[in-house]
């Protein structure tokens, strides 16, 4: 564990940091409520589809809940896991490569595993 230089922030800097942290925390909470909203909506439209409410066919419901899932994951990554901050370039590169390959694997398994 290498030594690091200790830097004491001036009161003004410290205040700015605190304000920024609070603002970022506020946006986290907003994103959380958005995630809750998306989850609720997903469960509700699936329930509606199960109750055979007109308009909620599975060709509409499945793409929508998949989209909501993707948005939620984006929010988790960029807000909760701080990927929007700087210094996350490598992390983003490997996560996106992983996501692309993940998509390919799933695509294969839902298309050509049962070929006949």
């Amino acid at each position: 564990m290498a030594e690091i230089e200790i830097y004491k922030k001036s009161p003004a800097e410290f205040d700015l940091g605190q304000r920024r942290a609070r603002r970022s925390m506020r946006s986290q909470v907003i994103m959380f409520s958005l995630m809750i909203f998306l989850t609720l909506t997903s469960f509700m439209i699936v329930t509606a589809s199960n109750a055979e409410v007109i308009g909620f066919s599975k060709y509409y419901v499945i793409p929508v809940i998949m989209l909501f899932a993707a948005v939620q994951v984006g929010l988790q990554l960029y807000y909760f896991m701080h990927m929007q901050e700087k210094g996350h370039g490598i992390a983003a590169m490997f996560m996106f490569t992983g996501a692309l390959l993940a998509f390919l694997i799933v695509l294969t398994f839902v298309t050509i595993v049962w070929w006949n």
Partner: protein
Amino acid sequence: MSSVAQKKGFGSWLWDWLTTVDHKKIGILYLLGGGFFFVLGGIEAMIIRIQLAVPNSDLISAGLFNQIITMHGTTMIFLAAMPILFGFMNAIMPLQIGARDVAFPFLNSLGLWMFIFGGLFLNISWFMGQAPDAGWTSYASLAITSEGHGVDFYAIGLQIAGGGSLIAGINFLVTIINMRAPGMTYMRMPLFTWTTFIASAMILFAFPPLTIGLFFLTFDRMFGANFFDHAMGGNTIIWEHIFWIFGHPEVYILILPAFGIFSEIFSIFSRKRLFGYTSMVFATVLIGFLGFMVWAHHMFTVGLGPTANAIFAVATMAIAVPTGVKIFNWLLTMWGGSIKVTTPMLYAIGFIPSFVMGGVTGVMQGAAPLDYQLHDTYFIVAHFHYVIVGGTVLGILAATHLYWPKMFGTMLNETLGKVTFWFFFIGFHMTFLIQHWLGFWGMPRRVFTYMDGQGWNSANLISSVGAVFMAIGVIVLLYNIIMTSVKNVPVANDPWGDGRTLEWAIQSPPLYYNFTQTPLVRGLDSVWIEKQEGNESGITPAVPVQDIHMPHGSIIPIFMTLGMFIAGFGAMFREETSWGLPLLVFGLAWTFVCMAIRSLKDDLGYYVPKEEILEDMKRERGRK
């Protein structure tokens, strides 16, 4: 800990090696372990060739033959080729980027011991009645019905060794991302470092599917799951997909580091900057990326349908483009260079035609309609031996000669090295070239014998004689290693005289902290640049001499791995014995306790005092 030769007992010497987290020592251990399994796999290959030398041979039974081919493939790929490459990556890559160690020294040691225990686990099967016998691919329908514990040894042994590979991959990636010396930008990294980087990234993405596939196989065989049992709704093709999603990137994981080694060799011994460095890097990245898009070309005859076959055929052929770029770059590096034909250079020159032949037959199989003809014949055997032996193994042998002085501080005998090369090279072509025709003539792979009068006799005999040549080559190499180790003539920093990258500017073998001062890198081939500008040491320091922070050794990795090893036996004998289940639980608990100890005990490392470094520098100057 000091580099000063100390009088140490055998016990403390052994303890030092078992607990080491020094990347150079771990590299040597990888080399030893991988070398041992390479010889083992070679012996298995010899038995195969002796059995097939004549028709109607009954030297070994069909069942034993299946076990031997399975273990030959598995051993050579997972326990020989990969670990030996890991050995060179460990020993050389941190030196090339000017680092003191790898990013995670503890995990490095853990990865090593997982490989060793996984390899032992696999090979203990020989003494437990049955070795794996479903082929190195262990296709599910065959593997789940294979009797005895053979395939269980395969699944669990590879699980342990594969975990080690994943750890090694992450470790190398972070080392290259975070620990490059000042000035060592990505586009100034030596090609071996680049290929290590890409191969490690491929390990990161390719090994998790193998982990899952092996779990499926384990659960199907031992815990009543039904992933691959069609009567229960399972699907045996899933195994093939998962295996090749891992397996195809795996062959690029094997070949890319060899490409890196050859790039270094061409550049050093042509005494020229590598031609088209940027396109080399780009081609490496592209090969790595495309390597994930082509796995189904191993499954053309499964019946995926013309659309899927066409897509994967086109993607497969696309890989020939970046590979071709590399071949031409190597040729043009030699063009107009002042070439010195040393042993490593001999291997490099031999590699180009050999690998191109393997590549061309690969494109042939990439054409799906032709693959229907070639599938499961000796043509396939010829092809993959041409790429793996002609590429990876030649690369490993070349690196052995090239980096031996850097790793061990003494030079392998050049004459014996060339003898090894010629025996191995001629033997290799003799063994495998003729197998292309055997394939055309219809000889299927994985048969334990064949009938007389099909026109295959003389071709098989030639192939077997070639194998003997290769064996002689390897024996000469072993003799060479023993003789040079006994003589142990020390060598200077740059024994080849034309080193271009940072590892050639420090002692052979390097001090345990590698660089007395972190170097400043001012361009590609930084040592070459410094020497051209009259700086004889080859290094411009980036910092003054100061205390160096180093990690502590640890015995925990061995114990952690031992827990997995024990748990493996427990899982295997869970049903037929009363002690199986407790052993499984005990082994896992043991591993978790080790992990908890590691997590709870602070390990902050220690400092090498400045005085010791100054002392080492003074002694180094005195030697000159």
